[in-house]
Structures are given as C-alpha cells and as structure tokens.
C-alpha cells in the first residue's frame, strides 16, 4: 500500500498524474513537466513535499550529538539558521543528506529524504547518547514548497512576517500564514528563491488553497515531482540514491564544502580524511551532450573505449534546451573540456565535461 499525503485528493482534483515515488503516491505532473518547470523559473510553483521526513533531536546534548552525526559544522549556527549537511557511515559512504534547523542549542529539527526516513531514524537511535532524545514526527507534518521569483510576493499576502528580512537558509520558527501556524524556511530544491513551510498535516488542504489563491494573479501553478527533479538537476543539487549513496562519499559527490574536516570529530571523519589526503579517486562531473541523445542514470561513460564512470542523473534541461548529465568519473577525467562517450543503447555518444551548475542559482541574498 502506497503512502499518501494529506493533499492526495487535491492532486487528483487538479488532474495530477500520480506515480509511486519511493513508496509515496505523488503527482509527477499536472499539465506537463516542461511547462511547470518553466513557470517555476519565470513566476512560481507550489509543490507538495509532505513526504519528506521530520525528526526532532532535543536535550542538553543535542548539539554535541548532531555535531558528531553530520559532516558540516553546526556549532557556529545561530538559532533560526538552517544548515545543509551530508551524514556519513564510518567508511565515508553517505547515509543521507539533510537540513538541520537550529531552534535552540537543545532543540533541532532534521528534515530528511522521504525514502531514507526510517533508515536515518534507526541510525540516529543507534548513535544517540543518553543526554538527548530523538523523535520521528514525519507523520504529523505537511510540507509545502513555494518556489520561484514571485514566491516572496505571493507569500507576503498571507503573513505579517516581513519576508524580505529572512535570508536564504534562515527560518522563522513560529509564523502565521493564512491563519495557519507554520515554520517558514527560506530554502528549496529548485535553484530559485523560495520558501518551505512546515505545519500540521490537518491544515494542508486549507493552506494549499490559500497559497494558490494568493498566487492566482502572480502566475502560480501547482508543480509536480517531475519538475522538482528537472529543476534540481539543472541547479546540480544532489539527489540521494543518484549523486549520493552508501557507495558515494560526499567528497566524491563534490560536496567538500559541507564536510568540515577541521571539526574535532564526526562519524566518517577518519575515512574522509584518508580519502582526501590520498586523493579522491572519482568525482562528480557535469557534462553536456554533443551527439543527440538523452543520458540516463546508470549509463556507462567511456573514454577511448575504456569505462571511466557512470551517469548518476541525466535529462533534457527545459530552461537550457539541451541534454545534460551528471556522472561519477575517475578523477582525472572530471575536468572541464574533457570529451567523454556516454553509452546509450549500445552506441557511444559524444559529450563534454562542463562547469556546474548547468543553471546559475537565483537565491535571495
């Protein structure tokens, strides 16, 4: 039985084409992926991302514990700050990538990938010290992502919180939006400015309708998981299970800036230090197709007939009108300008390594 978010009936009513996404029945699109994608870049889109997991970590030892759990440094974050971070196993492989919301030194909300929620919670419990508590509250939350250049203008119609004072990757823990108590985070997974709202799942339909109404004159459209994926792909934001996995370290995924090896200790530090000092053997690279063809996850990448890596994600990029891919390549080939062959249905198709991201992010300062 697939899980459903509180907005399931709303998606059907809007003509959403439903799909199984990691055990969740969610809309892949309403009108069309390309159409929704372009509307998010030009105006705004509203996504139901209630499948995401929410785990609270509280108690006197919460900060010290999280500092050990995640690879990024949360110790310098002030309350109201969000921190993106990978979480690693002792061997450096990636458990998940998540956002840590710091409410206070003894109170943190972790937002994790839906399909990893149970695994992450188990991992947290396994490593949890006596001086803090972890609670998986995923079933109590709805989450909406309002993304695009008009997101601020739309949301401002529904709240007294001066949104222009919230900087990117900061949040307001207790706000009221359209009469509903929400946590407002200025963040997203599209490469555009935008907000993610966390609130009581029983209010999901009500808040969805209020936001759609507020955006009716701003070009706001409902957007599905298909557009969410092409948007994040163009912005080269990693997707767990593709660019990150138990077999791929954050250093290999090009996320070194979120791995703070100068922290006293964290799970995976020894392995990652060793990988860095010996030279990271393979690296994530972006490439543009020269020949015609669409690269897809798991396709082999060759240079001179020799396998040098594989594609992690690939797609037509609606905002750029070209086909691009992300690939894990032997480090020596992960350099701008390198010509590679992507094996598409048994044929070698030419591509070239390019600088990431494909689409420059338009975050608010």
């Amino acid at each position, binding site marked *: 039985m697939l899980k459903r978010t509180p907005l399931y009936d709303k998606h059907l009513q809007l003509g959403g084409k439903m799909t199984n996404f990691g055990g969740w029945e969610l809309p*892949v699109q309403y009108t069309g992926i390309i159409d929704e994608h372009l509307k998010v870049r030009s105006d705004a889109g509203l996504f139901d991302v209630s499948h995401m997991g929410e785990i609270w970590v509280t108690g006197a030892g919460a900060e010290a514990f999280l500092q050990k759990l995640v690879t990024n440094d949360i110790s310098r974050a002030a309350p109201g700050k969000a921190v993106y971070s990978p979480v690693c196993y002792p061997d450096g492989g990636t458990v998940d990538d998540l956002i840590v919301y710091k409410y206070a030194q003894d109170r943190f909300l972790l937002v994790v990938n839906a399909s990893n929620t149970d695994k992450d919670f188990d991992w947290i419990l396994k490593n949890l010290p006596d001086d803090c508590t972890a609670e998986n509250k995923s079933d109590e939350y709805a989450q909406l992502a309002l993304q695009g250049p008009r997101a601020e203008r739309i949301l401002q119609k529904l709240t007294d919180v001066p949104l222009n004072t919230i900087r990117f990757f900061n949040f307001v823990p207790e706000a009221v939006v359209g009469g509903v108590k929400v946590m407002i985070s200025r963040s997203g997974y599209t490469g555009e400015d935008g907000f993610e709202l966390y609130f009581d799942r029983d209010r999901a339909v009500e808040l969805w309708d209020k936001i759609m109404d507020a955006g009716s004159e701003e070009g706001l459209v409902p957007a599905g998981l298909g557009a969410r994926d*092409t948007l994040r792909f163009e912005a080269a934001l990693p997707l767990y299970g593709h660019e990150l996995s138990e077999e791929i370290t954050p250093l290999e995924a090009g996320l070194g800036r979120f791995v703070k090896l100068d922290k006293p200790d964290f799970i995976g530090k020894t392995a990652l230090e060793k990988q860095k000092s010996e030279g990271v053997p393979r690296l994530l690279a972006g490439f543009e197709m020269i020949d015609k063809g669409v690269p897809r996850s798991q396709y082999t990448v060759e240079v001179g007939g020799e396998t040098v890596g594989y594609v992690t994600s690939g797609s037509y990029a609606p905002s750029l009108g070209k086909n691009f891919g992300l690939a894990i390549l032997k480090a020596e080939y992960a350099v701008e300008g390198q010509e590679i062959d992507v094996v598409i*249905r048994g044929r070698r198709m030419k591509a070239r390594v390019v600088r990431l991201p494909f689409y420059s992010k338009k975050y608010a300062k």
Partner: protein
Amino acid sequence: MSDLKEFKFTREHEWVKVEGDMAYVGITDYAQEALGDIVFVELPEVGAQIGSGDVLGVVESVKAASDIYCPVSGTVEQVNEELQDSPEKLNEAPYETWIAVLKMDDPAELDSLMDYDEYEKFCAEGD
C-alpha cells in the same frame, strides 16, 4: 484530422496507417499522454529490415526512454526527419505525426492488429 477508423493499433500503443503496401507508423494519443513531454526520438535507419514486434525506435520523454515496437515486418523506406528538431510534434498531433514508413513484407500481419473500436476498449480496460 485523419480518419482513425482507417488505422490499426497495437497493444503497445503504436498506430499503423496503410497506403498500398506502405505502412505509416506512429504512437497513439494514449501513448503520448502517458509518456508526457517528448524531448527526443531515435529513428531507425532507412533500409533497415525490422520484424514485427522488434524495436523500431525510441521515444524519450523528460522522465524516461521508451521503445517503439514495429507493428508489421518490413523495410524502412522513410523516416520523419522533422522529429529530430521537433519531437514535441508527437505530443501535439500524435495521429498526424508518423515516425517511419515501412514497405510491408506481409500485409496479412495487419489482421492481428486492433481496429479503433477495439483499441479504445483496450485502453479503457487498462485504466
């Protein structure tokens, strides 16, 4: 608009329109709707001999690649080069947009395909 009563259909959602011993092949409205935005079409080679049920080409939507199966055996006489630059035509006008034209080996193979009424029923049952 072509008269769909003259078309034949496969269970894999391809259509065939016959003119003499030539078969025009495309994908159905149901197929394009299920695929979503089509961004690339891999066409067969002119002159290729393709058996019934073998892969004739590939359509790629934003999400995935899907094989197009050949409804009847034959030799590829012509391919729709326009799809190289405008694959979205398959979304916009699926029954006006053929992918390839085959010279049929055995027109009797057409008898095993569905007519429009049968195909509509087949799609309705699948939903």
